[in-house]
């Protein structure tokens, strides 16, 4: 078989894509190797991030040079990352499906497309602007009025009582993340709802179901795989979100949330907020431990995305 030069150069450039993913994983593994040796796998469920005594002399532990007392446990990051993303998804999913149905079915087309633009443009807003909005609008509003009210009146709900905090924290982070993933879910759902055969909906109407019963008993069950897939995709997006989280989460250190208002931090936000102090470590172990966090985050999002894409491909979305 003979291939033209054109085809060969196409394949060459196209292979940049898978190569870059492999390189990302390879470089992170290579760079964080000393940290992996030092921390072992248990750093995922131990809870103390401590650079050690930076003025002491480096000691050798497990064959690695580290500062005395240095420990790199990230359980609080694992908890913060997963909790904020899951709560964001729980809030975003019904809203996104509602908005998608509103635009796809309830409105006439001439009105739906300009209004859909509002939702689509929300997806284009840079994450740091979301963070700014969370910082300047959401946190004062939530911290001064909403959270104190909630903690006083919703005490009977587990984790809703207790100190309402300052507004920086788990629920605010989840709220901002929810607004960031709603347009993502909504766009896919709008397309999916529009692509359902009209005959199915008509059959439902013919049986005497009203519009919402058609949505509940026919459309949503039909789109089960798509909904699961796009939810997991959105979860992946929320897990890796950085700037907005840095600005509203409160950047907690070694602190496990005890109610829904507690300050938290996530892996992505932690990398941004801690590199500067990690550079103080003369053995470089702290920077390598941050690389290990990046590796964990990368593998987590790759796994989540692979699952999501497999589901969406089986549902033939895109």
């Amino acid at each position, binding site marked *: 078989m003979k291939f033209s030069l*054109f085809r060969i*150069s196409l394949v060459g450039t196209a292979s940049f894509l898978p190569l870059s993913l492999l390189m990302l994983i390879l470089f*992170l593994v290579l760079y964080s190797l000393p940290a992996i040796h030092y921390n072992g796998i248990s750093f995922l469920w131990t809870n103390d991030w401590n650079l050690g005594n930076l003025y002491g002399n480096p000691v050798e532990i497990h064959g690695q040079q580290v500062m005395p007392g240095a420990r790199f446990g990230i359980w609080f990051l694992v908890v913060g990352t997963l909790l904020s993303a899951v709560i964001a998804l729980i809030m975003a999913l019904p809203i996104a499906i509602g908005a998608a149905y509103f635009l796809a079915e309830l409105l006439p087309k001439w009105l739906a497309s300009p209004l859909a633009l509002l939702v689509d443009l929300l997806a284009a807003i*840079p994450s*740091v602007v979301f963070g700014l909005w969370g910082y300047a609008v959401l946190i004062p509003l939530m911290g001064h009025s909403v959270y104190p009210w909630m903690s006083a009146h919703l005490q009977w709900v587990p984790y809703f009582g207790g100190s309402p905090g300052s507004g920086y924290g788990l629920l605010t982070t989840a709220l901002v993340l929810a607004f960031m993933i709603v347009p993502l879910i909504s766009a896919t759902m709008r397309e999916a709802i529009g692509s359902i055969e009209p005959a199915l909906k008509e059959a439902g109407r013919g049986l005497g179901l009203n519009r919402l*019963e058609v949505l509940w008993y026919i459309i949503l069950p039909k789109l089960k795989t798509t909904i699961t897939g796009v939810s997991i995709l959105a979860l992946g997006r929320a897990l890796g979100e950085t700037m907005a989280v840095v600005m509203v989460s409160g950047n907690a250190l070694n602190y496990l949330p005890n109610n829904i208002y507690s300050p938290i931090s996530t892996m*992505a936000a932690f990398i941004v907020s801690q590199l500067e102090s990690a550079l103080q470590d003369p053995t470089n172990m702290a920077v390598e431990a941050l690389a290990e966090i990046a590796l964990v985050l990368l593998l987590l999002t790759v796994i989540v995305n692979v699952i*999501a894409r497999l589901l969406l491909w089986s549902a033939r979305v895109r």
Partner: protein
Amino acid sequence: MTSSEMQAFMDSSLPQVQRRIRFSLKRHIFHITGTVFIWFSFIIVALAFLSIVGDVFWKALPGLRLSLLTEVSTGMGGGLKNAIEGTLVLSIGSLLLAAPIGIAAGIYLSEFGSGIAGQSLRFLSDVLVGVPSIVLGYVGYITMVIYLGWQFSVAAGIITLTVMLLPYIARTTELALANIPQPVREAGYGIGAGEGTVILRILLPGALPAVMTGLFYALALSMGETAPLIYTAGWSNYMWNGQFTHQPIGYLTYVIWTFINEPFQEAHILAFAAAFLITLLVLGLILMGRWLMIRQLRKRGSYQ
């Protein structure tokens, strides 16, 4: 069934039917709460968008003066000239690097990507889209900034953004080409054109508006990014001197998240002014991309 029997049957069954179609409270409540929830969910999303844009615009208003464009920032005040320049250098630089590679990958996926290699390439690029941008930034930091010794530099920032943009451009190009009907390709090969000629001279010009839309989106994406740049491009209060390595550069999104933490009113206004500029640029690019797309669809007569 005779007509009298029929009449008798209908007489006997009518009252029953009327009894069954009675007002169902449960269904009624379901319908009302559902409708209210659906209206509420759209309204809250629309309000969030308007609140973000409105708040940024309103708080940026006192800072929108000409000196933004003519002065460099001073750490807590001044203008945004250096940041605007940096944003343009980084985003346009990364687009120039990513566009040829991404478009080539898109061509491969669309024209020759039906086999196992193409399928896995498509899958991997979808997965690559989901990689958090901070991870890209950190890898850029440990490879280019530290290992290659470029320090915080324009080149490290541009290359990191390029890796981020590649899968987007590849996928939009693929979709754009896949929308061109098969007979167009057959006509090309029929008059004796080779693979390269058909793709570069016939398919690509035809798909150009859609490809351009993808590039506009990619440009918007790279302008709005912060996380991959913090530890690759660094930050500088000065104008760029044209060097690609060993030379950090400023950009608008950095101003937003650092200046808002300064204790000065002037710094806050500057942060909002930067947010306003970046939102304006990003939304403008997205709208321009959509307009291009719709105009092309109208020309083909496929847009209602």
